[in-house]
């Protein structure tokens, strides 16, 4: 059952979850709940493919990230400047993303639900290690973004724990008033956190369309944005934890593809990631510790 092919597939499925979940950490650590990740992924997936058609794969990935960041900017503007309920704002982002992408797809490609085919980034085969039989499926013809995803994890851990930016970001999510008193620009930190999360969600969406499928297809995110959010919670708002949770969910998805040939109807197999998410959260939520000020709007100069 635990073949290297299955593991390779699990990693490919885990990548978008890991990238989005790690991105979500930046937003949540700054105190902004980002339920709009799904929408940012959708926009990133479409923009990535559309950009890929005109600019090639590298350009596409960049456009996807920018598009995700743009959606995040809207979320940030509404929830930081206007102190809108962050869940309402995130939901609006998701609806907006659905409409914008279909609108753009029809306007640009005359098709509502797909884009033309796009080329993927040059694949990487790890020298030497790929020669080991057991590692071969995992390390040959790998998308560069797979490495990016796994490098993001220690990088984010380092940023959060060892840099001034990370320290300030976290302080803003825990106790914004104290941070402000110490001269931290609370709004700037929150904007940065949300926009980074949007850019990464966009990257993850672009991975799906450019690297994984070779085109944009409506509904290709399938709730991965929410699953990524769950992975981040399960990972206790830490990059390492989010990665492990992402791998777990990725494994569940890879497994569900393998089971298709069996006697179980495919609809039940497709339910596995969703049900697993619920089960994992149900078993975990009591022990998780979100940033103290997550979801709470911060009002400048309004001391309690």
């Amino acid at each position, binding site marked *: 059952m635990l073949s290297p092919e299955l593991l390779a597939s699990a990693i490919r499925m885990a990548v978008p979850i890991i990238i989005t979940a790690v991105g979500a950490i930046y937003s949540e650590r700054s105190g902004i709940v980002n*339920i709009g990740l799904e929408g940012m992924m959708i926009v990133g997936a479409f923009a990535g493919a559309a950009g890929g058609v005109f600019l090639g794969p590298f350009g596409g990935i960049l456009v996807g990230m920018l598009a995700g960041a743009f959606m995040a900017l809207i979320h940030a503007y509404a929830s930081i400047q206007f102190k*809108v309920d962050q869940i309402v704002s995130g939901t609006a982002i998701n609806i907006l993303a659905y409409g914008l992408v279909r609108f753009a797809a029809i*306007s640009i490609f005359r098709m509502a639900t797909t884009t033309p085919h796009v080329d993927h980034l040059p694949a990487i085969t790890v020298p030497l290690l790929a020669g080991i039989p057991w590692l071969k499926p995992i390390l040959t013809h790998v998308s560069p973004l797979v490495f990016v995803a796994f490098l993001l994890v220690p990088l984010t851990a380092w940023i959060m724990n060892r840099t001034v930016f990370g320290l300030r970001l976290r302080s803003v999510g825990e106790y914004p008033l104290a941070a402000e008193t110490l001269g931290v620009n609370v709004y700037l930190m929150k904007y940065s956190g949300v926009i980074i999360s949007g850019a990464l969600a966009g990257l993850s969406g672009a991975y799906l369309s450019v690297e994984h499928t070779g085109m944009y297809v409506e509904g290709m995110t399938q709730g991965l944005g*929410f699953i990524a959010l769950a992975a981040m919670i399960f990972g206790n708002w830490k990059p390492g934890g989010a990665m492990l949770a992402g791998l777990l969910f990725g494994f569940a998805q890879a497994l569900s593809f393998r089971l298709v040939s069996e006697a179980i109807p495919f609809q039940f197999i497709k339910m596995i990631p969703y049900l697993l998410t*619920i089960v994992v959260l149900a078993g975990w939520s009591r022990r998780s510790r979100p940033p103290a000020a997550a979801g709470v709007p911060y009002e400048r100069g309004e001391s309690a």
Partner: protein
Amino acid sequence: MNAQLPRSKAAKRLALLEKFSPVLAVLVAMAVASIALIIIGKNPLVVYGTMFYFAFGRMDSIANILYKATPLIFAGIACAVGFRVGLFNIGVEGQYLIGVLCAASVGFAVKGLPVYIHLPLTILAGAAGGALWALVPIWLKLKRGVHEVITTIMLNHTAFLFVQFLVAGPLMDKTQVIGPAGGGFGSLRARTPALLPTARMPDLHGTLEKIGINFPAGSVNWFLILALLAAVGLWYLLWKTPFGLELRAVGHNPKAAETAGIRSNAVIFRTFLLSGAVAGLAGLSDLLGYFGYLDIDFPRNFGFTGIAVALVGRNGAVGIVLASVLFGFLSRGGMGILIIEKVPMETYYILQGLIILCIVMASEVIRRYARAQQKKEEASANA
């Protein structure tokens, strides 16, 4: 909101502003959506003009708007009930699908009942299905502390897959006529058998004709009346019953409510199930009043639009009905601009997202304005 401001001129102006803020928000949203229209080389004024003209210039459009508003009133009430108690029921989408599934099953499988038993039973099955699908997330929230937003989203996906499985499998109508005679393309369509006539909701057209309203076509059915009654029910529940008082108290501040002797969790639990039950009715107008069977292409997104409806309607009965008509209009207008102007009807979803953002931003602007006013008054009182 509850504290009565002194009825000064400024306060009156403020109350007026608050009342009309949804209108303002819709206008701002339309202005922002113009950007997308300009980018594709359309004149927004022409597009919106077409929208109005198409939606209000013809009787069949009016009928269609009311038909489209019907499920949204139920979905809006379902979301509003959740909002009022401080919960975000984003699971209306899945709840109404399960509601439709249960109602369809009772509608075609239970035979030999007279219409006055079969129809109510079918409707009840819908409500029960919705409540059942709401049971899991609220139980997980209260017992395990899992936020309802993620669980309900996951259950939305699960519900869709489950319905897909049933209508393409065990519940599929095997007696369909294949080929051109049956309108198919050589294979069975993934849909349930037709519901019995005793489970179908009659049209409103005949009744409306008697009072002089002549809808040419469309499918306005008695669910419109039921939806309006449900809105009245929401108002009554919130403002005239002890449970409504408890519900609002918990929504305002669960800890304070607890101190006042209200068992917050019990109120939250019951309210969420109620929200699910109402959500279970959202799809029934289409199922029992129009299609008469459940298939894989059953209308989606009522749940998400319901969130917008509840927000625009400020979680109140009258507001929800008006907001539902608004979204019915936008949807019908979206058809119009597609046909006449060749503008993607997805403009509707762009507007929907923007309206949600604008409406919540507008209430913040008003809050700030109110505070500035208050400071000004305090300053002048001290002077």
